[in-house]
């Protein structure tokens, strides 16, 4: 009897391990393969260069900086709202049906398909608010889409701060806002930043929502002008983005050398992984110095 138990235990453990490995190993292999195929082009020239023929040659700086701008603007829109919404839900919201509805709205918002967000972006920002297809419209669409990420992680970060901290502060006569500002936020800033980084990585990878709201397949670049290279897009302009650039070179243009396709994919994956590693490291650091 006992032996059978041990046997079953061993098998079960192996099966679970295999399941976990099945998720990880093929994906790591594929990613390694993508980087291997991209290796002929990967380099500073490629990162800093300007596409030729829309992506059949040259580099990928314009889409890279475009993604950076998209992320920055969307972050500027959704960081204040998302963080304050997280504060509201954790600190202010009463425990009633209305808060329950807000929570459901947050989960629903997180689950709305990206293409529906794209349709929303077209209907609301591009057409109704008259932004046209622009960096601003695309950033707004991405911001609405990624707000739940920030709300959830802010709320989690705040709820990790022990209630006793707040009570101590209230007992000294501080108001609710003073408590949040001086005790709760400083103790949860790393957690909030983790959320911010996750939002950034999500925003950088999205394609469908920017497809109809402002991404452009090609914008000519003055390859020699540093100013143009660092500040190529304004809020009313269309922009190039890494994710859409990958679709264009993989699926739209003819005669694109293989290495260029894999190169774009590799840079996008690399960017996302670097961002996520930041958030992971930040979280580990936070855990290691937790004071309570």
């Amino acid at each position, binding site marked *: 009897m006992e032996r059978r138990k041990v046997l079953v235990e061993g098998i079960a453990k192996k099966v679970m391990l295999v399941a976990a490995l099945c*998720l990880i190993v093929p994906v790591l292999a*594929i990613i390694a393969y993508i980087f291997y195929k991209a290796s002929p082009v990967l380099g500073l020239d490629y990162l800093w260069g300007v596409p030729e023929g829309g992506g059949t040659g040259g580099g990928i700086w314009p889409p890279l900086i475009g993604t950076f701008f998209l992320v920055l603007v969307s972050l500027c829109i959704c960081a204040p709202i998302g963080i304050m919404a997280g504060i509201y839900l954790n600190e202010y919201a009463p425990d009633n049906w209305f808060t329950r509805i807000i929570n459901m709205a947050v989960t629903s918002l997180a689950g709305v398909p990206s293409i529906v967000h794209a349709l929303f972006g077209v*209907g609301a920002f591009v057409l109704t608010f008259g932004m046209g297809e622009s960096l601003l419209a695309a950033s707004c669409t991405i911001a609405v889409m990624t707000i739940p990420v920030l*709300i959830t992680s802010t709320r989690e970060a705040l709820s990790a701060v022990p209630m006793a901290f707040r009570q101590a502060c209230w007992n000294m006569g501080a108001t609710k806002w003073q408590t949040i500002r001086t005790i709760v936020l400083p103790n949860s800033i790393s957690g909030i930043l983790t959320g911010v980084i996750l939002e950034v990585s999500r925003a950088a*990878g*999205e394609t469908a929502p920017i497809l109809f709201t402002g991404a452009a397949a090609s914008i000519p670049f003055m390859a020699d002008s540093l100013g143009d290279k660092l500040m190529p897009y304004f809020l009313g302009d269309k922009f190039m983005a890494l994710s859409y650039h990958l*679709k264009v070179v993989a*699926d739209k243009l003819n005669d694109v050398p293989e290495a260029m396709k894999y190169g774009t*994919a590799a840079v996008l994956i690399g960017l996302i992984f670097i961002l996520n590693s930041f958030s992971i490291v930040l979280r580990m650091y936070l855990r290691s110095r937790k004071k309570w």
Partner: protein
Amino acid sequence: MATKKTSFRGLGAKFLDGAEPLIRILIYASGWSAIIFVAAIFYFIFQEAWPILPRVNWGDFFFTNDWVPVPAEGNEATYGAKSMMYGTFAVTIFSMIIAVPLGLGAAIYISEFATGKVKETFKILIELLAAIPSIVWGFIGLVVLNPIIQSVFGVPVGVNLLNGSIVVAFMAVPLIVSISEDALRAVPDSYREAALALGASKWEIVYRVLFPAAKNGLLAACMLGVGRAVGETMAVLMATGNGMVIPENFANPAILLDKVRTLTATIVSELPDSVHGGDHYRMLFVIGIVLLIFSVVINVTSDIIVKGIKGDQKNA
């Protein structure tokens, strides 16, 4: 120097304290923003679809197979979305067949069997897996899996239901893993200890104690996986082959090698070509409404399954 800095800080603090009423308004407004955004999404999508809603033949839409938005001269445009519903359904089912066992298995391994460094490593890798963008998965399906499927199955085209399902499974799995893991972790340790005291092995604990205790959470994880699979766009666009065919015999495993087309892929590939404000354009927004309602229902239901109807926030 130091005093100066303090006084500046003091000034800032005074300002921030004085602004409390304003800040409270901002915080409340932001808190309610999620509701506003969801309402706005409904409003604007209905706004674009509105003019055609009374004229949509819902019977045809759900139960016929002819989606011909730009008909040949002399023909009427028809909007039968059955084959796309089938496509979305098939991709969802097959991706879940792959994703649910893998996801639950991985979650159990990570939460119950793995310890220390192994556990941390797996968690980090799963998190990175979750971060891979949709478009990259599409690229993997189109460029990497396509030739593999071609040579393994000896079929002419490797972008098909199987390819799409594999890709979507890998996209949905991290969500399933992390939510299942939360559900397993939420089971109080006293349950495990009690079972251990009775002489149960780890597997028996998982099977007899954790599964029943965490079943709502695990179910919700699978539902959210379904939601993710239904809403997935760019990856299925590139990996499923976009054929609008409904197989005659569902029992034949060869349907896995058929091309399918999902609701999401239809919107993203046809919206750019549709006449703006025309019937076709509006029908694509009608598909958007179907997807939107479906995703909200899935999310709200799974939310209720996990937290109960009243909602216990603190355990969320």
